[in-house]
C-alpha cells in the first residue's frame, strides 16, 4: 500500500512571537481522513494553525504544501486551496449571510450562493439575514459555506463548535463529517477529534507529546498527558478523577515539560524524552510509554 503524500507538512517547525518560541521543533503531516491537534490553552495549537495557513512564518524549520515550501509559494493559489474556519465571530455584522458567502465567489459565480447555503443545511431565506439575526449554529454554517465557496482541498478548523450548544454542536459535526473535504482540526475536545479525525496529535507546552490513529491513541494512551486528558472528560454517570491540585504546575523548563504534573514522573524525566516510535503508526515522547501501553 502506498501512503498518500501529505497535503501539508510541518518539518521541525519552531514558532513564536518576537523572540519567544511557543511551539518547539514540531514535525507532523496533515494526511487524509482528518487530522486533529489536541491541546489545552497555551499548548500552541492555534499558533500551529496560523503557521499552516501561512499567517505566521516559522522561526526555524519549514511548512511544506506538497513539494513546495510555503515561504516561496504563490499565496493566491494557496489561500484558495487551504481555507480557515474559525469561531463564527468572523462574520461582518453589516453584511447579510448571502453577501458574506457571495464575497468569496468570483463575480460570475455568485449565483452559487443558494446552492452553498443548501450544502451547509441552511434554508434559502437565511441569505437575507445579518449575523445578529442568526443563531450561533447558523452563523457557524455561514462561515463554513464561505470557506467552501472556493472549493478548497483542506479546511483548517480552529475550535469550530466549542461555543455552541451541544445539540447544535452535534449537527455541525455531522455536517463537517459529510463534506468530503480534507481537514485539520484544532480543538481541546477529544470527542470532536474522535468523530472527525483518523489521526491525532496531542500537544503539551508547544511540543507534540503523542501521535497516532485517534481510536487507538484514546483507547490506550502512550503518554501520561493523553491519559490525564482522556480521564478528565466527564462521563455520563461516571465519577470524575480525584482532584490532586496539580494542574497549576507550569510546564518544566528542562527535561520533560509534563514532569511536574505527571503522576508517573521518575528521575529519568529530568532528561527530555525524544518522540519515538512506540507501536504501529504511533509515536510518543515519554520514557515510560511502553509501561503505559503494556
Amino acid at each position: 500500500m502506498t501512503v498518500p503524500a501529505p497535503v501539508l507538512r510541518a518539518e521541525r517547525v519552531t514558532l513564536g512571537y518576537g523572540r519567544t518560541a511557543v511551539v518547539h521543533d514540531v514535525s507532523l503531516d496533515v494526511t487524509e481522513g482528518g487530522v486533529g491537534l489536541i491541546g489545552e490553552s497555551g499548548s500552541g495549537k492555534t499558533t500551529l494553525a496560523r503557521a499552516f495557513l501561512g499567517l505566521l512564518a516559522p522561526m526555524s524549520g519549514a511548512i511544506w504544501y506538497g513539494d513546495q515550501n510555503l515561504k516561496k509559494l504563490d499565496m493566491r493559489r494557496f489561500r484558495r486551496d487551504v481555507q480557515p474556519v474559525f469561531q463564527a465571530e468572523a462574520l461582518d455584522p453589516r453584511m447579510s449571510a448571502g453577501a458574506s458567502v457571495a464575497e468569496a465567489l468570483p463575480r460570475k459565480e455568485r449565483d452559487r450562493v443558494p446552492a452553498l447555503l443548501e450544502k451547509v443545511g441552511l434554508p434559502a431565506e437565511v441569505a437575507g439575514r445579518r449575523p445578529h439575526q442568526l443563531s450561533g449554529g447558523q452563523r457557524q454554517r455561514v462561515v463554513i459555506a464561505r470557506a467552501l465557496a472556493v472549493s478548497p482541498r483542506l479546511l483548517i478548523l480552529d475550535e469550530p463548535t466549542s461555543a455552541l450548544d451541544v445539540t447544535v454542536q452535534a449537527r455541525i459535526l455531522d455536517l463537517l463529517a459529510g463534506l468530503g473535504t480534507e481537514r485539520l482540526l484544532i480543538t481541546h475536545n477529544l470527542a470532536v477529534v474522535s468523530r472527525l479525525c483518523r489521526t491525532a496529535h496531542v500537544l503539551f507546552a508547544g511540543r507534540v507529546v503523542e501521535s497516532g490513529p485517534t481510536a487507538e491513541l484514546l483507547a490506550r494512551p502512550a503518554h501520561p498527558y493523553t491519559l490525564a486528558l482522556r480521564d478528565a472528560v466527564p462521563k455520563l454517570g461516571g465519577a470524575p478523577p480525584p482532584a490532586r491540585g496539580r494542574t497549576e504546575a507550569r510546564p518544566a523548563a528542562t527535561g520533560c515539560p509534563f514532569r511536574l504534573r505527571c503522576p508517573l514522573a521518575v528521575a529519568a524525566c529530568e532528561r527530555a524524552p525524544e518522540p519515538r516510535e512506540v507501536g504501529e503508526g504511533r509515536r510518543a515522547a515519554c520514557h515510560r510509554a511502553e509501561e503505559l501501553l503494556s
Partner: protein
Amino acid sequence: MIEVRDLRVRYGTRTVAHVPELDVGAGECVAVVGESGSGKSTTLMALLGLTEGAEVSGHVRVCGVDVLTAPARRLREIRGARVALVMQSPQAALSPTTRLGVLMRRALDLHDVDASERAMAEAVEAVLLDPAILRRYPHEVSGGQAQRFAIALALALGAEAVLADEPTSALDVTVQAEVVGVLRRLRKERGLALLLVSHDLALVSTIADRVLVMKDGEVVESGPAARVLAEPSHPYTRELLEALP
C-alpha cells in the same frame, strides 16, 4: 437551604423562566441543565434577587431569607457571605490592582467576618491552592485558579450555599475535573448546598443528586440525576443526551 415554589421571571409579557419547584438542602447538589436561552441563568440570578428590570413572582427562600420580599439590606447580608455566587469568569470581577489576599480580607471585613491569616490560608488550601496565591494579582493566576479562589472566598466567608453558573465551561478539561473534584469534596466535608447551572449533562451526572432540565423558560423534566439521565421521559432530555459526544 434553598426553597423555590412557582417562581416566574417576566420581562414585559414574556416569561423567561418558570420553575414550579426547586429545593436544595445542606450537602446536596442540584443541577439546572439547558441550552442558551433556556432560562437557567435567570433562575439562578432570581435566587439572589439579581433580576433587575424583571417582574418576579412566586416564593423564593434562601438561607432563611424570603428573597422576593426582603429589604435590600437583608439581601446584602446573605449575598456573598451566606450564599456565594461563582461565575464563569471570576477574573472579570476581581479588581486588577488588588492582590487576592487583600481582596479576600476586604470581603471578610465587608461582611464583619473575623478571620485570621491562618483561616484565610486554610480556605485557600481547601480548594487545593497554594496559600502563596494570596500575594498574587488577578492577572497572575490562571482561569482554574481564579475559579477555585472564588470558591475559597465563599468558604472563608462561611457560605452555606454556593450557586455556580457554568463554573467550568471556560476551563481546560483537566482543570475542570479539578474544580469539580473540589466542589464534590466540599459538599461532603462541609455540607455545602450546591446549585449548579450547566449545559453539560455528562459533567452534571458526576456531581448532582437531582437535575432540572429547562427549555424555553420551562422546566421540562426533573428528578433524581440517575433516573433522569438513565430514563429520560422528555424528548428534549433525550435529545440532549444523544447530542453528547
